[in-house]
């Protein structure tokens, strides 16, 4: 196994080397790097041309320039990266650092969101194959496949960002009754389609969702939620308990009291932690958050193991899940707390341009909010598109697995649908999905170019685009270095995950 992975690693490395040569040659031949200066009327034209030739090493043959670049990259092994200079003489490694940070933030977040929701939607549509929701999701998937990203981005900016900001800036941001009714109807229809069941159950689901919306939205208005949002201990407790119960239903079945109690205890501890850490989280830093997260998960694991009895595994999973939900709720509560003061600073929160508000200073949470609102639109866009394909993969894989004999065996044992789907089908369908997702990630970094362009991010896409426009190989190759390395790493990850998931490879 290790030998196999090493061999794969070696061959990937060679491929990467070949690809870098190919891209280098193509880039330097894609145009004339001195074009703008040749057409310029500046007095110091000759000097500028001299200078650029010097920066770009144009006096040397192409293979020498490539060799220079390659040896520079080679030095990364000893910690002295030299990715060359762009045509203005700036060190590309410095530019890359900033660019990669903002791009990775965008891509990682979008991918994680897309994976989670894509897989969930995929499972749902597979279980409800040929139902209304399956057809709707199928159609939407095809829409997203066929949607030009840049076009959709403009629509998002216009309707989501500008629309929301206008609404928030209006003197009385509230929901009109037509809005409430439409939202209620849509929510009700969606929920009954998801939960399915017989006609009566569907009707109750629909009515429940509708009535809830009609009550909740005006209540939120009354609270002035848009400007002064809050959850409060009651909502936190309710959501936490719901998470514990829901996870138990899916993970072990409500009959398994030990698992349920483990989840509930974690939820209660979460509420205690909310009060206990309130002061600590007033203006924290990342280290504190990280430590608290580790502690929370550690405690959750302990609870799961202590309470679990014969179903330790399930209890631990449920407990950890509940802890994560509670942690998320606590963070949301603190963010909500900081929202009014953040609004005072920026006014129109959802940004359409750039990756952060220039010269922004504020508390940890305000800074968090600033980065978050800047990330919102591009993340939604990238996530929606990847989500479409992930949900397709998952659906396909689930359907494939559901035809297998061992699913029939599981059913013949008397397992219920939950057990058949989660324990038998999903575990198997994860194998191909994980591999595909790992491969996709590297491609997404490449694909973020357009998104960054539309939203005016100074990321790697920008680096690449200007580099290519100016026939300047160093930034282009820096971009490739990141995506190429990511591709190799994720190939490796895919191999490892494959072995982890599939015992036929492992043992």
């Amino acid at each position, binding site marked *: 196994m290790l030998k196999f992975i090493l061999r794969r690693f070696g061959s990937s490395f060679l*491929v990467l080397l070949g690809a870098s040569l190919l891209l280098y040659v193509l880039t330097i031949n894609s145009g004339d790097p001195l074009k703008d200066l040749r057409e310029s009327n500046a007095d110091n034209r000759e000097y500028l041309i001299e200078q650029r030739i010097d920066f770009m090493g144009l006096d040397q043959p192409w293979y020498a320039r490539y060799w220079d670049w390659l040896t520079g990259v080679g030095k990364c092994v000893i910690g002295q990266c030299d990715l060359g200079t762009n045509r203005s003489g700036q060190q590309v490694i410095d530019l890359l650092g900033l660019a990669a940070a903002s791009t990775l933030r965008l891509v990682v977040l979008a991918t994680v969101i897309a994976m989670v929701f894509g897989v969930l939607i995929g499972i749902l549509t597979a279980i409800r194959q040929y139902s209304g929701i399956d057809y709707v999701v199928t159609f939407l998937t095809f*829409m997203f496949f066929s949607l*030009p990203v840049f076009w959709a981005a403009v629509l998002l900016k216009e309707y989501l960002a500008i629309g929301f900001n206008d609404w928030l800036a209006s003197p009385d941001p509230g929901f009109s009754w037509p809005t409430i009714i439409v939202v209620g109807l849509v929510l009700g229809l969606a929920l009954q389609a998801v939960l399915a069941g017989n006609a009566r159950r569907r009707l109750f689901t629909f009515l429940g969702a509708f009535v809830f919306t009609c009550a909740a939205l005006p209540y939120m208005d009354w609270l002035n939620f848009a400007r002064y949002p809050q959850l409060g201990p009651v909502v936190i407790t309710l959501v936490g308990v719901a998470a514990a119960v829901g996870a138990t239903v899916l993970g072990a079945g409500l009959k398994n009291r030990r698992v349920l109690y483990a989840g509930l205890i974690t939820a209660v501890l979460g509420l205690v932690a909310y009060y206990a850490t309130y002061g600590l989280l007033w203006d924290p830093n990342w280290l504190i958050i990280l430590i608290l997260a580790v502690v929370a998960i550690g405690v959750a694991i302990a609870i799961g193991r202590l309470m679990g009895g014969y179903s330790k595994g399930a209890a631990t999973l449920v407990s950890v899940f509940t802890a994560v939900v509670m942690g998320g709720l606590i963070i949301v509560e603190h963010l909500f707390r900081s929202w009014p003061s953040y609004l005072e600073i920026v006014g129109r929160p959802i940004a359409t341009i750039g990756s952060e508000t220039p010269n922004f200073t504020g508390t940890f949470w305000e800074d968090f909010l600033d980065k978050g609102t800047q990330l919102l639109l591009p993340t939604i866009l990238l996530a929606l598109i990847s989500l479409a*394909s992930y949900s397709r993969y998952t659906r396909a894989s689930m359907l494939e697995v559901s035809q297998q004999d061992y699913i029939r065996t599981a059913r013949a044992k008397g397992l219920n649908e939950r057990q058949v789907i989660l324990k038998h089908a999903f575990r198997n369908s994860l194998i191909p999905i994980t591999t595909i997702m790992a491969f996709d990630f590297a491609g997404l970094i490449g694909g973020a170019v357009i998104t960054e362009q539309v939203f005016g991010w100074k990321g790697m896409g920008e680096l690449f685009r200007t580099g290519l426009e100016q026939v300047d190989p160093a930034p282009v190759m820096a971009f*490739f270095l990141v995506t190429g390395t990511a591709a190799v790493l994720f190939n490796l990850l895919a191999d490892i995950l494959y072995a982890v998931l599939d015992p036929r490879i492992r043992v």
Partner: protein
Amino acid sequence: MSNEDGTPRNKPEYTPEENVRNGTGPSQTAVDMANLAEVEDAKLRQQTGKSYSQGQLVRRRFRNHKAAMISAVFLALIFILAFTSIGYAGIPGWWDKDYAAAGAVVNGGNPTLSLVPQWLGGQGIQWGEHPFGQDSTGKDYFALTMRGTQQSLIIALVVGIVSTVIGSVVGSLAGYFRGWIDAVLMRATDLVIVIPLLVLAAVLGQMSSGLGAGILPLALVLGLVTWTSLARLVRGEVLSLREKEFVAAAVAMGAKPGRVILRHLLPNTVGVIVVNATFAIAAAILLETSLSFLGFGVQPPDSSLGLLISQYQNAFTTRPWLFWWPGMFILAIALSVNFIGDGLRDAFDPRQGSRGKKRGIFGFSGRDKALNKTTGSTAGPGGKDVPGQPINGSGLGGLLGGSGIGNP
């Protein structure tokens, strides 16, 4: 594919297709024909109906796929509209305005197209002088959009051909010969794959735009970078096909590699090839618009749908039609092609298609439903019209191609 042969080996119990086609009435008690082999032969002798080849069966299934058929008709209409309206390559069309000719801006460049009849308070159904409006220099936006649509369709055609040819050749050679040929070809494929598609296309697009010979070089270039997923899929398919006994039989008979590949392997991978070519086409259309949007594709004064959006993205609030029309056309073309691909996939691999064979996902859960509706089915065998995704290698691959290329 094996299921099309009618006798799945693990489930020999139930082959309704065969029974029905061969016309054995369900109630036929065959005491006198107790020997299965004789019964089969008798059936074969009686059989006088038309014989359907694989291709004919596929076409029939495709025609029954409503979403795909609607998409095909729709795409054909767009094609006709785009090429007859402003003409192509010097041949004039029925639309009198030129996409490159600037003019006076009339009525703020608002579109004159109206679809709301007068009795509904609109301006009546009319085409008008500038149906899609005018841009800031007074160019007719309908002509511009049609020009962009032409470009997209040409791209679709050329990319479809180029990437399919390269992909099938590379894939089938690698899969058939294996060994070092396979290793070399697949490493070459990896080489192209490891560079993000948009990046490679942008660099090549930049090069080709220097040639200045219109859209064709760009289309060729896009074809040169989009064949990789097809090559991998064809290779996979060929690898599994060559283990099939009919290929072994052909080799054992003494058939040369060329014959085995051309007569046995490629015809049997045509499903994978056609389906994935379709998805690659949809992806390439989007890729071209993305490149033009970034400035590495079609260059002004020529026009393309992506370029139009790029030029007018900031005009959204003031003159939204400049933004909506090209976007809608891209969406319409790509969506149609994707749906056609989906229909083709169902047609080539009916195993999991949405029609008829409602196996009840997750097997058996639908028993109650089946009990309730017992006999007297009302819906008819046609079933639902919205495509279900067939599940197989090609299915996943199609999506791979689709997403990987098209939606960076």
